[in-house]
């Protein structure tokens, strides 16, 4: 968020609605209405003085209306823009009274004369990412939401869990402000229901977010009892299955597979009674302190209005109608969709869909891509390294954030007494543009060569303050930040005097360090504009095509002799896509594209280099080729598990689901004429060997069942499952299959179905399947002509090899590990290498396409630049001290260090481009030969020495000795 706020190329128009969209792709005219905030955005500093004085208290929307906020307030602590707004509860807006805020605002930022403002913008393309709306359980009276005070939604509960929530991170009941110790969750609220007000689809995220909430509840209160009433548990995502087990194994957490009803509230205790059924004891009632409704995801409340304004079509669930092979486009060219409007999806899908939309816009508007390298001219850098340190200290009030707790003027006076400090002053907001300029001016005026700003965390604003030094011609690494907000005023609000003392200590340490700082240089690395794509399946082809369409050469490496990957074995999707026709079309585009170079029968023998400058050697039918490229996309796909169970390989009537699909399509007689067919789910996964769900098999089996039922409605089809995981809109097909008399029988992992060759009563050879039906509570025998096994999706056999070549990591299940499961789902920890498709985790074709565009989009953020900047704060080896033991090499997770032969023997050498400056190697080095620039021992020790003056330590030692 902060990045958005700071990016020079992004203008955030908050509190703004779209009125109309005219024109066409490449040339849209959009009319917007900026709603009045009654705050002058450029004057408000976010000091919140007005909030303090505002007399109106009304329910805080951010906290789900559990706690109160003021009529003038900042939406939440990390809001961007971080300024206030006044909403309709304001007394002045309602009754022309009050105006206290106007009187207390020192910056004259309140403006009650603001009116809605019309803004017109011209854009070439549009991305619709309006998100989702949590299901409102008030539409169904039986949930008792709003009626029983201790029935809350999962969104309410999310706020209760949060440290910025209504009770500061305490989970409390609104009724008596007591901790609930016995909490129940009810799943599928508003989802998987064909009833008035409900949604027939599965919301896809609730099973796992409920598990998260249960885990966090146990973190808050180890004794808490958590009960989850669920239907199928849909842990279909990466690492979800392990998460489910983690939840299940916590003491005091129970999972009940049962429908429930909320029956009553105790008039005195306000506890809530839930009725549910159990397989053994029939219907039971149980009282809970709190009931959480796991609400599903709805499309935005105004989705029909959005559709009308933008001229896009919606599906039957009122989400965007998606193209079968490109889930990012809408029916209106130039308007793209990402995030929740695509359907009920999780955060990673929302993220890579967004990157994918960005890539497709790149394809559309490439000719208009601006040259972003906005040249800022800095004065030449003076060499001040030989000068005595002359430190300037700027102490920030941060409005009232620091100033109200820490005595800032007194602290400034203290700073002036510190050694080497030649100047100190206070600032209301050091980060304000005029304050930043003031710092630059003072550096020049007072001849400062070191600057300390005592304000907030360096995480957000350090780049800004470093810039003030560059503007004054001083090396930016002569800047040091003292955090007297997060580390001080925010946590010591009640101890003002001590907080002021602590501010002194923190600044004293920073000044000491500043005196030791050394000037460092950052450097630009050129970026090779070509991309290497490893894997020629749908993911690799889509990604290569999108990058090539934006003018980048793409080298597509495929280990087989044909493109297509595992999709060559798939004929149709549940939604009716002709996969083979699509593949032919896609491969055709690849071969025809002048910028795409295909290498088939190819293996990678060597991969060297780093972000922007890789060199990969490929052995293929073209011979041995050395390819230079700036980015790499890993899209090597996955394979199918070969079952060893259920007579697979011994009896030809037992086949995998993909083999069944092949036989259905080819019109195989034995399959077509089968009277009875049994499908067994979860073969080879969700077990000890492969502790994950293969995600796609439930839908694959249902697809086959529907195909078979279409051809032969009389065929008896049984699907033996553990949980049916048809998340999202796939749920509709599950329902369709059930309505067409496909029989679903649940089995437990400890009581798996048994398969044996037998003869039926008529003497016909059959496969006899014995399975316990938990609904009927007895063992069933089913005579089948064909058995189809939902075989697991497993990582490609070459995964380890590729991971080793490109120095990237794998997840516990053997798939590639992304940099961040939610926020960086198509990147690796290693810069310049991207990930998509089933190499990441099993997924459907549209999901793969989404992610492949996402990887292309992320790669373009690198390839569209001529250079990347490498930090100056990297490790360095003092060669004389190095004894070549290699301890640093094993500590480095980026492969940035190597041993080189020198005349004095083997010595470690750091590649500054690969070094991320984490300092892990420093701690390992037995001779202290390796050090991290900007965090040297001298710099850090000077800081520590400044904590307690030497005399004081000596006094303490003397005192301690005296005691003896």
């Amino acid at each position, binding site marked *: 968020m902060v990045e958005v706020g700071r990016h020079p190329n992004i203008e955030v128009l908050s509190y703004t*609605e779209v009125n109309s969209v005219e024109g066409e792709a490449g040339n849209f005219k959009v009319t917007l209405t900026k709603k009045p905030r009654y705050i002058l955005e450029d004057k408000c500093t976010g000091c919140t003085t007005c909030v303090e004085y505002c007399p109106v208290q009304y329910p805080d929307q951010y906290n789900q209306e559990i706690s109160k906020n003021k009529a003038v307030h900042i939406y939440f602590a990390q809001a*961007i823009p971080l300024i206030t707004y006044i909403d309709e509860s304001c007394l002045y807006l309602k009754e022309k009274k009050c105006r206290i805020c106007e009187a207390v605002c020192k910056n004259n930022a309140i403006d009650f004369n603001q009116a809605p403002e019309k803004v017109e913008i011209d854009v070439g393309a549009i991305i619709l990412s309006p998100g989702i709306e949590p299901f409102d359980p008030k539409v169904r009276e039986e949930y008792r939401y709003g009626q029983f005070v201790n029935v809350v939604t999962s969104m309410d509960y999310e706020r209760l869990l949060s440290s910025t929530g209504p009770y500061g991170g305490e989970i409390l009941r609104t009724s008596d402000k007591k901790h609930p110790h016995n909490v129940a969750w009810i799943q599928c609220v508003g989802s998987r229901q064909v009833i008035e007000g409900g949604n027939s689809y599965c919301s896809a995220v609730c099973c796992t977010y409920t598990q998260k909430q249960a885990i966090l509840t146990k973190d808050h209160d180890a004794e808490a009892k958590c009960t989850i009433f669920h239907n199928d548990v849909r842990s279909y995502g990466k690492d979800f299955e392990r998460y489910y087990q983690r939840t299940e194994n916590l003491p005091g957490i129970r999972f009940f597979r049962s429908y429930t009803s909320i029956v009553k509230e105790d008039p005195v205790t306000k506890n809530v009674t839930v009725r549910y059924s159990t397989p053994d004891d029939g219907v039971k009632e149980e009282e809970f302190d709190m009931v959480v409704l796991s609400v599903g995801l709805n499309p935005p409340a105004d989705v029909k209005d959005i559709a009308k304004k933008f001229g896009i079509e919606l599906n039957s669930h009122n989400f965007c109608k998606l193209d079968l092979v490109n889930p990012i486009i809408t029916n209106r060219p130039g308007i793209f969709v990402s995030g929740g409007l695509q359907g009920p999806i999780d955060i990673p899908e929302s993220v890579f869909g967004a990157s994918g939309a960005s890539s497709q816009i790149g394809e559309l508007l490439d000719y208009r891509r601006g040259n972003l390298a906005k040249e800022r001219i800095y004065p030449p850098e003076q060499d001040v390294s030989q000068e005595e340190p002359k430190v300037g200290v700027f102490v920030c009030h941060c409005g009232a954030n620091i100033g109200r707790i820490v005595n800032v003027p007194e602290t400034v006076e203290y700073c002036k007494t510190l050694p080497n400090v030649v100047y100190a002053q206070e600032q209301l907001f050091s980060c304000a543009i005029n304050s930043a300029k003031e710092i630059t001016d003072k550096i020049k005026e007072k001849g400062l060569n070191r600057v300390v700003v005592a304000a907030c965390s360096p995480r957000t604003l350090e780049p800004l303050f470093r810039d003030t030094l560059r503007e004054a011609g001083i090396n930016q690494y002569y800047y040091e930040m003292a955090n007297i907000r997060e580390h001080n005023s925010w946590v010591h609000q009640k101890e003002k005097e001590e907080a002021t003392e602590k501010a002194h200590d923190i600044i004293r340490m920073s000044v000491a360090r500043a005196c030791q700082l050394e000037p460092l240089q950052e450097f630009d690395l050129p970026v090779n504009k070509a991309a290497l794509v490893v894997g020629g399946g749908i993911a690799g082809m889509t990604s290569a095509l999108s990058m090539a369409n934006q003018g980048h050469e793409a080298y597509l490496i495929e280990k087989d002799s044909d493109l297509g990957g595992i999709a060559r074995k798939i004929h149709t999707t549940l939604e009716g896509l002709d996969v083979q026709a699509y593949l032919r079309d896609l491969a055709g585009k690849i071969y025809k594209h002048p910028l795409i170079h295909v290498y088939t029968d190819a293996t990678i023998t060597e991969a060297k280099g780093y972000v922007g400058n890789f060199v990969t050697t490929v052995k293929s039918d073209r011979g041995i080729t050395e390819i230079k490229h700036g980015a790499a996309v890993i899209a090597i796909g996955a394979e199918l598990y070969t079952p060893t169970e259920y007579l697979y390989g011994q009896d030809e009537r037992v086949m995998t689901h993909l083999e069944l699909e092949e036989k259905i399509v080819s019109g195989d007689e034995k399959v077509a004429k089968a009277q009875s067919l049994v499908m067994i789910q979860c073969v080879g996964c969700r077990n000890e060997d492969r502790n994950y769900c293969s995600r796609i098999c439930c839908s694959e089996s249902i697809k086959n069942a529907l195909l078979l039922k279409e051809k032969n409605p009389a065929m008896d089809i049984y699907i033996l499952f553990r949980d049916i995981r048809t998340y999202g809109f796939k749920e509709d097909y599950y329902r369709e299959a059930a309505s067409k008399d496909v029989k679903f029988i649940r089995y437990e992992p400890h009581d798996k179905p048994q398969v044996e060759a037998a003869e039926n009563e008529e003497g016909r050879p059959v496969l006899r399947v014995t399975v316990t039906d938990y609904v009927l509570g007895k063992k069933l025998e089913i005579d089948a002509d064909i058995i189809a096994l939902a075989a697991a999706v497993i990582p490609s056999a070459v995964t380890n090899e590729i991971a080793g070549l490109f120095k990237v990591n794998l997840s516990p299940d053997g798939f590639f590990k992304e940099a961040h499961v939610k926020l960086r789902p198509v990147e690796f920890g290693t810069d310049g290498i991207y990930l998509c498709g089933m190499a990441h985790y099993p997924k459907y074709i549209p999901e793969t396409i989404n992610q492949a565009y996402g990887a292309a989009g992320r790669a373009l953020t690198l390839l569209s630049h001529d250079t990347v900047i490498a930090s100056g704060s990297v490790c360095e080896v003092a060669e004389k001290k190095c004894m070549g033991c290699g301890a640093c090499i094993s500590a480095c997770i980026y492969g940035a260090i190597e041993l080189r032969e020198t005349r004095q023997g083997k010595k470690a050498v750091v590649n500054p481009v690969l070094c991320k400056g984490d300092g892990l190697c420093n701690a390992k080095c037995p001779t202290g030969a390796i050090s991290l620039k900007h965090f040297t021992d001298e710099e850090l020790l000077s800081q520590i020495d400044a904590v307690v003056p030497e005399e004081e330590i000596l006094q303490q030692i003397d005192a301690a000795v005296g005691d003896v």
Partner: protein
Amino acid sequence: MENVISLKENIQQLRKNPGDGNFGDVMVVGGGISGIQASLDLAAAGFKVYLVEKAPTIGGHMAQLDKTFPTNDCST
């Protein structure tokens, strides 16, 4: 708030830029996690972005979440 000011300054600079006419502009509607990611990617890849959000701040529903599964990382 310095963000807002610097942003405006930057946009004004851009508008003064004679090459302005060739600048690809994109509107992103909705400032939740998806809109934020799209804006950042577009901006990094050389496009000018208008991020339109109907609420007083960007962040969307993800900003309301405490932690995210399956790693229990902080959400905001």
